[in-house]
């Protein structure tokens, strides 16, 4: 299963912004949340978005057969 990019620029950058914000929040403002489990969840959520930013590929899109990238 080759990781062919399936996100267009807007989708990718939006995910990037969300990913960075969420990861940063989880890493540096953990005290505000007060629960390690939720911190980890947020971390995963952010990380997935960062992967999408980096590779331009979304696993869920891949499974669902959606492609927002124009050919």
């Amino acid at each position, binding site marked *: 299963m080759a990781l062919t990019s399936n996100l267009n620029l807007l989708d990718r950058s939006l995910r990037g912004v969300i990913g960075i914000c969420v990861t940063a929040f989880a890493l540096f403002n953990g005290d505000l949340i007060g629960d390690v489990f939720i911190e980890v969840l947020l971390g995963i*959520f952010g990380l997935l978005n960062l992967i999408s930013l980096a590779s331009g590929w979304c696993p869920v899109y891949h499974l*669902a057969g959606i492609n927002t990238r124009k050919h």
Partner: protein
Amino acid sequence: MQQIAKIKQDKTVKPRLIWACLCVALLVSAIYVTVSYRLTADITVRSELKAMAHITSLFSNELSQVNDASEVDTLLNEVLLSAVNTPAFITVTTAQQQWQKNLLLTPTERSSLLQLIPGTEDNADPIELNGKTYLWQRHQTGHYVITFVQETPALDITLSFVAKRLLVTSIIVFWIAVWLALTLASLIAKRAEQVNESLAYIATHDSLTGLPNRLYLIELLENSLGPATEDTDTPVDEGCLLIIDLDRFKEVNDSFGYAAGDTLLKEVARRVSELINAPAELIRTGGDEFFIWAPGYTIEKAKTLSLEIVNSCNSPILINGLTVNSGASIGISHYPSQAENTAGLIVCADTAMHKAKAMRSGWQVYDDKKIADYKDILQLRAELSDALEQQQIILYYQPKVDLASGEVIGAEALCRWQHPRLGLLGPAEFIDLIEHSGKVQEFGRYIIAAAAAQASQWHTEGLLVPIAINLSPYNLLDPGLAAFIGETLKRHRLPPQFIEMELTENETCINIDYIQSALAQLRELGVSLAIDDFGTGMSSLAYLSELRVNVLKIDRTFICDLTTNKGHRAIIAAAITLSQSFGCDMVAEGVETQEQARMLYDMGCRAAQGFLFARPMPAQEFHALLKQQKPQFSVT
């Protein structure tokens, strides 16, 4: 005719699914948040209550050691101030006395709270007063009843405590739910699309050969012909429609079985597919009929293609170890020079194909001169039912003459269509239409009824002339035919020998067993049977002996050159001998000259019909002829 597009266009599934999934996601999130909050609140209240129970039991312990009633007050003060830091009060009651202590509560609030405490022991539900929440405990020790009520900030604390976590987790849950919704919706929509596409494919393709079918052809032609509109996406300037009909498919089916027929069809489909190039398309509409729609083809190009196809179909195909060549007849029609719409184009190609088949010429281009014909054909077909209803189909009669005496010994009924617009039409112009219109049965019965009525009318006048009716082979397949004839004869009180059924030789062998039983029924009625056009059909002499007919009518092709053609003379002589051996009568058709009549008479033929004696004529004229002094004709 946009059915296929309609099947494919169902795009509403996906958005609906997404909305449904999103709603479910929202609902799940809401339920999750509510349940979590209530759970936390419950646990907090319980722990709070436990603490209060602790205080109360402590207090009651202390109380049990007090002997003086005045000490109760001090004790109350101590407990309340040391253990409690929110608004609260404690009352202690005995049968005689009551002590109470307030902390940050007004007396009115206290009394209303006291009233709100239910008598039951269940204290899990907090009491609400003026927007504040209170918890209570009641304890009985000795003769003291202790009631402890305390305002609790537990719920607010819980709310602020769990709110942040709930917010974050519900965002994550919602995020997962949205992804799930998208994935599910896309998967299901994709599946539905696949199903729709395969449905459209099944609806427009033939399962045997995998070629497109009639529905597809109509759609294709509708889209290709005529000016460009919203519906027609690919109009063409010109094109040719080819109809290919296999010549020997039925024989292969009959002699080798359906599996062999299927093999033949598949092989032909494969061969023809290889011969044509896109955008030309091969379509199978059913049976052994194939269409090719070749956009951009000129007639010349179509002719070349036809030649290739005919050659290809003539090269043998191996079926069950035997080589079979199916042969093909192709009809070609050209758009727009010959027809401008789908129906017209198909009718033209079909007509040409039938012509090719009849001429055994392999292929045939639709004849330009007859452009208007198909319209006439279509119109005539539409007018047929009127014709039967309004009795426009009438019978003409041609006499059969006894060659020895010159007397009229019978009549052959021939149908004519007294058309209100086109005048008198001969059977050649409409019999085909009737046989393909599904009115064969009705038509056959109509003719039989008309002939029987005429015969009975003459019979009552004492003119004893049997009338012969030409039956279509399809009529013999009508299971109620014998019963109908019997009924008709009975109604007209006509002896059965005055009706004769003429069958052509080819017809009598389409389904020999069935037809034999049908003919046996007719024979039982007493109706006499004749074989028409004898000598030209394909039936064997064995069939002839089994059919046991009463009359043989030898075909006109043998009569017309009787005087010059030795071979035909020999055939006639043989037929005459044959008829004598079978014990049936013999009638010569198409006698035109005196010489032919004399020769036939000399050879032993006793009866004849033809232009020499009379052409077919209306009933009144025939009636007049019968009324003449006998003999009506001088023959020898």
